[in-house]
């Protein structure tokens, strides 16, 4: 006769052990997953990398042409340029972040995210270099030089467009201003007979700039000055260029 009760005890022991272990492990895993999910990546989606890899893995379909090497090179160069932006960001952030961490101003998880981003960007650079070398030997050595020039050139162009883009607004302002000044001068001429002091204190010269208030008399002097300003600059230029 089997001793059922005596046998049940070890089985129950094993059951409880396995059960508690599995509960623990599932809880632990869940917590770990939620923790790493809460650590948002440092950078957003790397669009250029996605485009490059999409093009690289494009299946040649009937009817649609094959993606040429030129496209892939362009995409790779765009990707390298974006990497340059990211490296600059990482480098700029590193010093500040480590100081903040030492002072305890930022949490540990921010630092962890940062380090992960750093590691990712290193891997990304290695990847880009090897891809570049696959296209043309030694391109890997120069692709990031080219990319960094591209980033800076793009910046130059945006700045120039920004400044030159102000032209229409500025011109409009200046036309209004000129009209104000000339109407102010006309009024002054009219009022001259009434022997008023030649200060342009009329209300019509209230323009957008505060500097406009009393400019009438100043401008007179300046306009006389301007022909002298022209030749002076001109001479200077002849000397240098």
């Amino acid at each position, binding site marked *: 006769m089997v001793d059922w009760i005596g046998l049940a005890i070890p089985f129950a022991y094993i059951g409880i052990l396995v059960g508690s272990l599995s509960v623990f492990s599932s809880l632990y895993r869940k917590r770990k997953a939620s923790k790493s999910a809460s650590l948002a990546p440092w950078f957003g989606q790397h*669009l250029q990398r996605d485009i490059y890899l999409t093009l690289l893995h494009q299946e040649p379909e009937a009817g649609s042409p094959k993606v040429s090497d*030129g496209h892939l090179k362009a995409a790779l160069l765009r990707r390298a340029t974006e990497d340059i932006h990211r490296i600059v960001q990482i480098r700029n952030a590193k010093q500040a972040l480590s100081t903040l961490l030492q002072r305890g101003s930022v949490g540990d998880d921010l630092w962890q995210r940062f380090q992960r981003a750093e590691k990712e960007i290193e891997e990304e650079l290695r990847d880009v270099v090897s891809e570049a070398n696959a296209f043309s030997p030694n391109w890997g050595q120069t692709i990031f030089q*080219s990319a960094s020039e591209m980033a800076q050139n793009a910046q130059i162009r945006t700045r120039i467009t920004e400044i030159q883009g102000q032209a229409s607004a500025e011109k409009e302002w200046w036309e209004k201003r000129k009209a104000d000044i000339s109407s102010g001068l006309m009024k002054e001429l009219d009022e001259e007979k009434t022997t008023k002091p030649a200060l342009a204190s009329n209300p019509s010269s209230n323009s957008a700039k505060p500097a406009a208030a009393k400019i009438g008399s100043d401008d007179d002097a300046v306009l006389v000055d301007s022909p002298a300003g022209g030749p002076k600059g001109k001479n200077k230029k002849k000397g240098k260029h």
Partner: protein
Amino acid sequence: METSDTFTLLPLTLDPTTKAISSAIPASTALTEELTALNQLHRSLLSLEAPHTVPPPPLPVVPKRSAQITKLRESGNADFRKNRFPEAIRMYSVGIDMALARPGWEPSGLVREEVSALFANRAQAHMSLQQWVEGALDAESSVEMKKVGNAKAWWRRGKCLQEMGRVEEASEWVGQALEFEAAEADLLQLKKELDAQLVQKGR
């Protein structure tokens, strides 16, 4: 960014005739912009000359474009000396466009140098025509490209602002300029004039 061995597959298609890459479905603005930039870059890569299949390293520079830009500047200067200011402005503008149209992988320092000289000269030509607004903007562009050793451009914007009656702004600008070019006599003089004007206005 995802891990190193995965990526997001994007719905991209290649136009058979124009060879332009576009998104198959309506895409976000970021993706559209990126694709436009990519197609532009692709076209400029196609214009690479024979021995190069990939963008060459930034240095050495191919001297052809530099020579053309220098020539444009010289002829602009010649027009300027003969007091043909609109022609000079046109020459400088063509030069600026050409300098800015350099392929992106060529040295940005060179672009800065060329563009700042051309903008400074164009500012001067605008000033001779009493076009203060354009002069001020060109001088600002020039300074933006090259802050140190560009006293003339600093001076020109200050002068333009003064002519437009923006004395406070001009004074502030020249003050900034003196941080870079403390010994420039013209700037010091302009500063003095502006300060005198400010005092006069304050009364």
